[in-house]
């Protein structure tokens, strides 16, 4: 017993517990589970990220048009409010569900899992009577260049959409998002003639300073320029069974 005040200080014991585990381990376990689903279903799952207005939904509309039914596509679309993006995608012939997050600034692996089972795959099963997962699943993340980068969803690849109108310095300003990208799609290139100080070469140079391994693919959903290369990239990913993703590389680095 403590002689000063009579408390039982001397009986207190302290331990230090070594954990050395990712704080987001629970999300990473859920993401690994999602990844198993996608692999079993032979679905190429793309985590499509980018600012609000970077052209993510327009890219998917153009993708559906270019594929013309040669590949089955599905999408889930994250937004804080409304299911406008999901509606646009459905109008373009893509079975799509909205993940409305309220105030959350990113999707996580559990939201994606719930959307798969409770909505996307479940509703397809009900409608068609047989369950057939899509060959390509696009997970359109919340429009945000910060938070979505941190959460693994179980995707095969990370794609970041960057519109030419956002300026060529975005990779330098938001290095974490671009560092996670397997592919950066530079959208709205039809607007390049109207912009001063923005060039594909300039974006590429900035990208090489934060995400040297990422591929840069300029395209315009409006004119169709570059859409062929985008479809070819998706086919390459499918054949490769999903490239070693930025998320997996990051996991190894941890």
């Amino acid at each position, binding site marked *: 017993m403590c002689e000063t005040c009579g408390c039982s200080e001397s009986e207190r014991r302290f331990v230090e517990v070594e954990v050395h585990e990712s*704080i987001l381990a*629970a999300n990473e376990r859920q993401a690994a589970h999602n990844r198993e689903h996608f692999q079993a279903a032979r679905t190429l799952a793309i985590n499509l990220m980018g600012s609000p207005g970077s052209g993510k939904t327009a890219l998917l509309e153009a993708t559906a048009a270019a594929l013309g039914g040669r590949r089955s596509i599905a999408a889930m679309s994250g937004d804080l409010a409304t299911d406008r993006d999901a509606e646009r995608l459905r109008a373009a012939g893509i079975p799509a569900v909205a993940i409305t997050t309220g105030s959350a600034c990113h999707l996580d692996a559990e939201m994606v899992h719930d959307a798969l089972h409770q909505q996307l795959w479940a509703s397809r099963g009900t409608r068609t009577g047989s369950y057939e997962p899509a060959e390509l699943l696009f997970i359109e993340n919340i429009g945000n260049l910060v938070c979505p980068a*941190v959460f693994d969803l179980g995707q095969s690849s990370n794609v970041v959409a960057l519109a030419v109108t956002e300026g060529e310095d975005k990779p330098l300003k938001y290095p974490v998002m671009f560092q996670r990208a397997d592919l950066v799609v530079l959208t709205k290139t039809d607007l390049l003639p109207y912009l001063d100080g923005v060039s594909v070469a300039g974006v590429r140079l900035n990208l090489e300073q934060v995400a040297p391994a990422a591929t840069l693919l300029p395209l315009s959903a409006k004119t169709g320029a570059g859409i062929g290369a985008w479809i070819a990239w998706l086919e390459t990913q499918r054949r490769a069974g999903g490239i070693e993703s930025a998320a997996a590389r990051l996991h190894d680095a941890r």
Partner: protein
Amino acid sequence: MHEYTIVQALIDRVAEAARGYDAPRVTEVRVRIGELAGVETALLRKAYDVFRERTLCRDAPLVIESAAARWACPRCHRDVAAAGVLRCARCDRPAILVEGGEIVLERVAMEVQ
């Protein structure tokens, strides 16, 4: 503000560690945050202060170790300087991030009975 999500996960994980020792009180939480982890340490600290009340962590200071970004060549494994274009000058390969992306709970100090 995904820092709130991270703090929620952190406190859950600390509670799990404390349960294993039947500890009534945690006295220190130590984490390591990479420069390119996408976590703002000032925000993380603020979020922790908000969330820790009424949890086992209420008296536990949060100690944050920072990890600088380190890039290396995937072929020759030499470090590539984190300035300018991130490419190995010898092998002409794009560098990969080998350190600086981590969000790790390192250690939990606690009082046990």
